[in-house]
């Protein structure tokens, strides 16, 4: 049972020429994911969601803030990073580029097993490799293990990538757009696989995506990000069915949903939903009830003005 806690994570990128103003990719981002739960982090390109993923697996060093496992901040540095990564793993977006084209599948899966001491002998390794292949439903296992990435389909590759992430027997899994590069007809299959694996292994999963529909259906809570900041958070159904922040409304309206009626944009929705808290500051994880619905107060925020105007236009047009 492991809880991932991301607290006040901030990342500034210095502009390329050095002295210019820093670009704040992630601004005071906090989230808690408990074991056996999926939390979706939703946002469009440039919202900072991938930077959050990379900070969570220590590919990027945060400018400020910390990542805690069970309330403890793990040490940093070579050895400690390795230990950390035996607990926190990641599935990358593009299975076409996240597997080394020049190494066979067996090698790429066996490495994490050996690095993290999961197996001690060749026989154990063989057994564990077959177990991993079975866990991600790849068969015939022995044959696939012998292959190179280019001999596999996109879906098969992503299964291999998931198996690699599972190899160190992690407690936390960061899935960064794990299906956006795959053909639509196999996306749900892969997400279902991740969901099953979460249940079987009691994983805490942070599911990063731009797709609201799968975010709603595969996670218990949704955090919506825009320009590095959280604009809305709450239980999945609450956020999708009663979106309050203008940006969330824009996202919900934009997502194709032919099976439902048209979505009504409503800037005053919060007035009819007193259970939604509007706030200028991100809620504090220690005191904040996890399931509560929160939205960033946009009413006095100059940065959101154009957004509000766009939405007002849409609301008027649909009336």
């Amino acid at each position, binding site marked *: 049972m492991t809880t991932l806690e991301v607290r006040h994570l901030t990342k500034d990128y210095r502009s390329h020429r050095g002295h210019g103003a820093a670009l704040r990719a992630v601004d005071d981002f906090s989230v808690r994911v408990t074991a056996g739960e999926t939390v979706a982090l939703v946002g469009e390109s440039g919202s900072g969601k991938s930077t959050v993923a990379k900070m969570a697996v220590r590919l990027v060093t945060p400018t400020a803030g910390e990542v805690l496992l069970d309330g403890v901040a793990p040490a940093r540095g070579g050895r400690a*990073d390795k230990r950390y990564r035996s607990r926190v793993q*990641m599935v990358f*977006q593009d299975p076409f580029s996240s597997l080394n084209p*020049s190494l066979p599948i067996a090698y790429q899966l066996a490495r*994490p097993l050996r690095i993290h001491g999961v197996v001690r002998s060749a026989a154990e390794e063989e057994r564990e490799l077959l177990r991993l292949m079975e866990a991600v439903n790849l068969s015939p296992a022995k044959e696939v293990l012998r292959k190179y990435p280019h001999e596999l389909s996109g879906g098969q590759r992503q299964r291999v990538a998931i198996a*690699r992430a599972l190899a160190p027997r992690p407690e936390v899994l960061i899935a960064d757009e794990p299906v956006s590069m795959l053909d639509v007809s196999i996306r749900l299959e892969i997400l279902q696989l991740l969901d099953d694996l979460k249940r079987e292994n009691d994983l805490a999963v942070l599911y990063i995506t731009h797709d609201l529909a799968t975010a709603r259906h595969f996670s218990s809570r949704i955090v919506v990000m825009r320009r590095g900041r959280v604009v809305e958070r709450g239980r999945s159904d609450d956020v999708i069915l009663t979106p309050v922040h203008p940006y969330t409304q824009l996202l919900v309206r934009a997502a194709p949903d032919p099976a439902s009626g048209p979505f009504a944009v409503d800037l005053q929705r919060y007035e009819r939903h007193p259970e939604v808290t509007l706030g200028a500051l991100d809620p504090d994880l220690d005191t904040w009830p996890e399931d509560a619905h929160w939205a960033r107060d946009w009413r006095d925020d100059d940065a959101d003005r154009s957004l509000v105007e766009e939405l007002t236009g849409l609301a008027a047009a649909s009336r």
Partner: protein
Amino acid sequence: MLGRRGSWKLRVGLTICAVFAVVAVLAPFLVHHPNRSGPDGLQPPSLHHLFGTTDIGQDVFKQVLAGTTGSVTIGVVAGALTVALSMLFGVGGAFLGGLWDDAGSLLSNVFLVLPGLPLLIIVTDYVDSRSVLVIALVIAIVSWAGAARVLRSQTLSVRSRDYVDAARVAGESRWRLMLREILPNLMPIIASQFVFGALGAILAEAGLSFLGLGAANGASWGSILFFAQNAQAITLGAWWWFVPPGLCIAILGAALGLINFSIDERINPRLRAAAQAPRRGGKR
């Protein structure tokens, strides 16, 4: 693996290089005293003297064979040193990043703007013992910087690929990342830089020798040209004196160039993308 267009160039290039390499290795055992003079000066090619003789009766064929050893050695040694230096400062800097990268870039940029040939002339003039190895070393020092820049940018590009990140997340150590994930992807470029360095060195040495700044004992194609020039072989019509070493330089240069072309064809991103496109199944 190579496209049909690439492979003939590679095959021809490698064959020619192999012939020269064999000659270079065997020449010291076959030819003794290549510079010994004889009674028959300025003889045109004959069965006795395949490439004719010089003004003081030296056998040009023997000189060319011996010169092959010198020229090829300089090419190989200078090429290897160029690669070693450029990997140290280019690949090493890009891989370690931060200050290392800044230092490596600075150094290679400084060497890049140094005027090569004049520096070469000054340094070779200054060095006391002008052996083949010293010449190769000097050539490598003035010419590694370009290769370092190429390798640095390629390393940066490979380092940012997803599978390198994925290997880091899997827990691979730095060394393992370097040797197993990054270096194999640099091999074609490293090979191409070696070939390029060797080609440049052979031409540079020929130039130096021609100017009389070559290896002291004069065992290279360039030095044959130097003596031919000094003895006014052209005005004397002794074409057999300067054509063979000149042709050797041209042929070996062309062979190395062919190898480089075929490597280029393989690593050129556009050609590579075209080769991969069908596998990736069109658009995503």
